């Protein structure tokens, strides 16, 4: 700043007197200007361009806010930030409304320890609509009970300014400071910034505390998921000389509500059950465990006398007892007798499975009440023929409704075409191929329900014997040996090349020897049912 004076004096001395003093002054001015230009100005510039105190205080608060682990940390850092911009060492208290209607005062200052501030619910209610900082004197003369209560709250803490902290419509806390300053424009800007950052910090601190037990619970569900998998049959293909079987279970969450099981009732009879409890999660998973235990006991006890309708009745009693009509279950049970070449089946509100026969699909249409809905439900046991080469696919609705609720479901029609396109595949491959195809078709969209399938194949005698011989003897029993990796299926070719589906139903009927209600309708009735199922 002295440079212009030096310059003027030097100039006057040189022009006026041309004295040695003038020359000296001239030299000094030149040196000063040089030093100022090269050294002093950059320093001054730096200080002038650095963030102001208020800005630095805000940045510091923001930087530290990620490490707050409690409301006390927030209060302490707020105190430091306000202290930094307020000359007289403002004490800060953070007042947080509690769920029980009380309020909690948190401060780094000992002067607030044990202070009684009484019931200030009127103030909290009134401040719930307020977003701007309030100075104590602004409350003078306001007769609203909320404002009066707020004034009393501020007085109890000797606060001069109050800043409400609101997040998503909730009043999380109040910054109360004893500083009488904070009125300049830049300080008001500071308070506005502090309010924003403190609100975020406080919200995140509360949420952090609330979410604390989540990781532990997630682990609990992870272990439950492993246990649920252990309660289901192994998913490797099962090979027998006359049949093959493969199941697949993919829960949408850690615990699924689907269930599948199978059991050899005799040398020629195999029981398969697929079930889907209401919803998914821990409750339905318990229900599926109940179904598993019940099915195992009943099937072991009955052996080859097991009847699908009777089994569903037994399952109904168990689900009704445990689910108490709040949680229910759909299920389909089928017993394939490869010696008699027939399938006996019953349904409890489950999707109709498909029989893949001569490249055509037939639905196993039979209806029955859901499990756990009624004390005396009706389950109709039906019988149909099965021939070597026929395949059977049982599935829950998760695969058909895949894509929902965020996009269009994969759909029944596409699913039928897909299944039909896989008619040449072995049962050991079908479930995995279906799942891969549907996932590809959804282009990354999540499947929002459990997916469960069972594929069964009555192996054509010639081919079947050959296939079975190729499997090492040690791997013929459970668990079977997985077949060679299956190549990817091109979704566009698979579906585009398929002819439109015309369901054909050929149903041999017989009277059922079992105790449940037997449908003795004609084949034409069954065909009508199939059309209805469409």
């Amino acid at each position: 700043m002295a440079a212009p004076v030096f310059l003027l004096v030097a100039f006057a001395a040189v022009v006026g007197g041309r004295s040695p003093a003038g020359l000296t002054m001239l030299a000094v001015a030149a040196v000063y200007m040089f030093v100022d230009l090269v050294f002093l100005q950059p320093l001054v510039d730096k200080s002038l361009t650095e963030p102001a105190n208020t800005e630095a205080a805000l940045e510091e608060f923001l930087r530290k806010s990620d490490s707050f682990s409690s409301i006390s940390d927030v209060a302490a850092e707020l105190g430091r930030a306000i202290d930094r911009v307020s000359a007289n060492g403002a004490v800060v208290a953070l007042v947080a409304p509690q769920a029980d209607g009380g309020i909690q005062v948190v401060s780094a200052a000992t002067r607030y320890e044990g202070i009684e501030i009484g019931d200030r619910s009127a103030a909290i209610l009134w401040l719930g609509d307020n977003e701007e900082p309030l100075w104590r004197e602004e409350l003078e003369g306001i007769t609203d009970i909320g404002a009066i209560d707020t004034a009393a709250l501020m007085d109890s803490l000797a606060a001069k300014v109050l800043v409400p902290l609101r997040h998503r419509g909730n009043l999380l806390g109040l910054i109360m400071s004893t500083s009488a300053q904070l009125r300049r424009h830049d300080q008001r800007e500071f308070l506005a910034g502090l309010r924003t950052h403190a609100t975020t910090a406080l919200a995140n601190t509360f949420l952090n505390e609330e979410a604390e037990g989540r990781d532990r619970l997630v682990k609990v569900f992870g272990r439950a998921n492993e246990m649920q998998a252990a309660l289901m049959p192994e998913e490797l293909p099962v090979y027998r000389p006359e049949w093959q079987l493969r199941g697949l279970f993919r829960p949408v969450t850690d615990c699924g509500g689907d269930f599948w099981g199978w059991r050899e009732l005799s040398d020629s009879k195999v029981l398969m059950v697929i079930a889907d409890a209401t919803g998914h999660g821990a409750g339905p998973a318990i229900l599926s465990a109940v179904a598993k235990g019940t099915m195992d006991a009943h099937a072991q006890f009955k052996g080859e006398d097991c009847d699908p309708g009777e089994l569903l009745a037994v399952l109904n009693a168990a689900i009704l007892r445990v689910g108490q009509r709040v949680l229910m279950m759909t299920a389909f049970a089928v017993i394939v007798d490869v010696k008699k070449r027939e399938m006996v089946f019953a349904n409890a509100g489950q999707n109709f499975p498909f029989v893949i026969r001569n490249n055509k699909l037939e639905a196993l249409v039979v209806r029955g009440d859901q499990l756990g809905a009624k004390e005396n439900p009706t389950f109709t046991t039906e019988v149909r023929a099965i021939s070597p080469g026929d395949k059977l696919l049982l599935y829950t609705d998760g695969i058909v409704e895949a894509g929902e609720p965020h996009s269009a479901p994969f759909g029944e029609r596409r699913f039928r075409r897909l299944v039909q396109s896989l008619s040449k595949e072995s049962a050991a491959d079908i479930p995995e191929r279906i799942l891969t195809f549907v996932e590809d078709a959804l282009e990354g969209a999540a499947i929002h329900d459990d997916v469960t399938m069972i594929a069964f194949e009555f192996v054509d005698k010639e081919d079947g014997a050959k296939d079975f011989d190729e499997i090492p003897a040690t791997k013929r029993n459970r668990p079977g040996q997985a077949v060679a990796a299956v190549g990817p299926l091109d979704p566009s070719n698979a579906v585009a090349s398929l002819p439109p589906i015309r369901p054909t139903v050929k149903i041999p009927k017989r009277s059922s020897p079992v105790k449940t209600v037997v449908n003795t309708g004609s084949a034409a009735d069954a065909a009508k049912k199939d059309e209805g199922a469409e």
Partner: protein
Amino acid sequence: MNFVLPLGALLVLGVVWGVASVSRSKEIRRLRSARAQARTVLTSFAQTAMAQNSQNHIVGVAGEVAARLFGATGLFLINEDENGQATCVPVSDPIVPGDELSFPALISTSPNGPIAWFPDNPVIIFQADLKAGKGPDISESLNAMMASCHVDVLLPLVHNRELLAILGLSIGRAPSDLDRELLRIFRLEVTAACANVHLHHEVSHLHSLVDEVNVATGLDLSLIPKEMSGRIGKFKWHGHYRSAEQAGSDFWGMYPLSADRVLIVVGDSVGRRLAGAMVSASVKSCLDQVIADKGPSLTPGDVLTILNASLFRATHSALASCSVAILDPKRAQLTYANAGHLVPYRLRKSNNGLDLCVLQGTGPLLGDVMTPAFKVRSQQFSNSDTVVFLTDGLLAPRDAQGSAYGYRRFHKLLTRQASSDPKTMKESLLAAINAHSADQKLRDDQALLIVKWA
């Protein structure tokens, strides 16, 4: 003297000095004004971002702010997907929240690359610094990541040492000091807002898990009674169950098989909480059905064999221990078998006072082997005999020094309570065990069944 030369030099210096000073002063005013405006924009952004419900929406708003403050021509969100792959998603301009997820581009990153490095080093990376050799050790990977996304600034969004995402900005120039300062604040604000959304999701997930556990607990309780007493012939019995957590893994039951026989079951699934509760539910349901189907003809060995067949798989079976007994009050006989469970105790008055022994013999855990052999034994009751079935949760509570209640204390306790009736005995046993652990939270489920010739 010739003054023309020095005077001329002085005048030139004065002009240079004056021009420089004026220009600096203008620059300072511009900088301060730009900072003030930018700070206002950032404060307003922080407020807007905190009202958003998803990370994509926050990034959308951040893209607008980055374009305004830094002249950013591109904003990219770099995330780690479920398979551990880093994907780069361009946030289009104008930004349509949600749109950006349609075009993920894979970025090749090594296990020690930026995704793993940023959580411990949440600093902004400028390509200009990397080119000038001022980058960290992993500059090469960072450069590769920037090149994949066509960005020159990387802003890691790190909360609680967890990388939420990386924002990539394309500003097309070397950053000024003000850019660096504003980007620091910008990064912190985007991080705080994303962390808020993240935490809201975590809390809502937690609530849904808690709801699920509550539903499961309700089902668990409908399968396993908490407290029951009864009498069969000369025998009195009392059963008790308490789970350490909401859903427990112990189970017990008392089933009349016929008018004069009763089946006693006490067991414990391997696994705790939900996992254990699932196995218990399966075993208990299997048991219920076995009794409903087979009823009077059952033996303890039959029961264990059927339960074992239900749980057994060639690999990774669910496991449970179980003690099964059939009480025939008319003959005063107890037939029993055991699958890896704590052996039951028998208390009998003798000439020497009181005789405490265990009902010996055990087999493998349920689900452990395909065809186990469960040896069935029998025991004749005498007048005032007591048999106690229990799970290990009764022996597990620890005192302040960490010492478990254990067998020794339990045996002493049993002998002291020998003359009590089953309910009183149960209450005394639990009172002593709870006193040992100073009524701390249970660490394991407890099931207890006492049968006494009254």
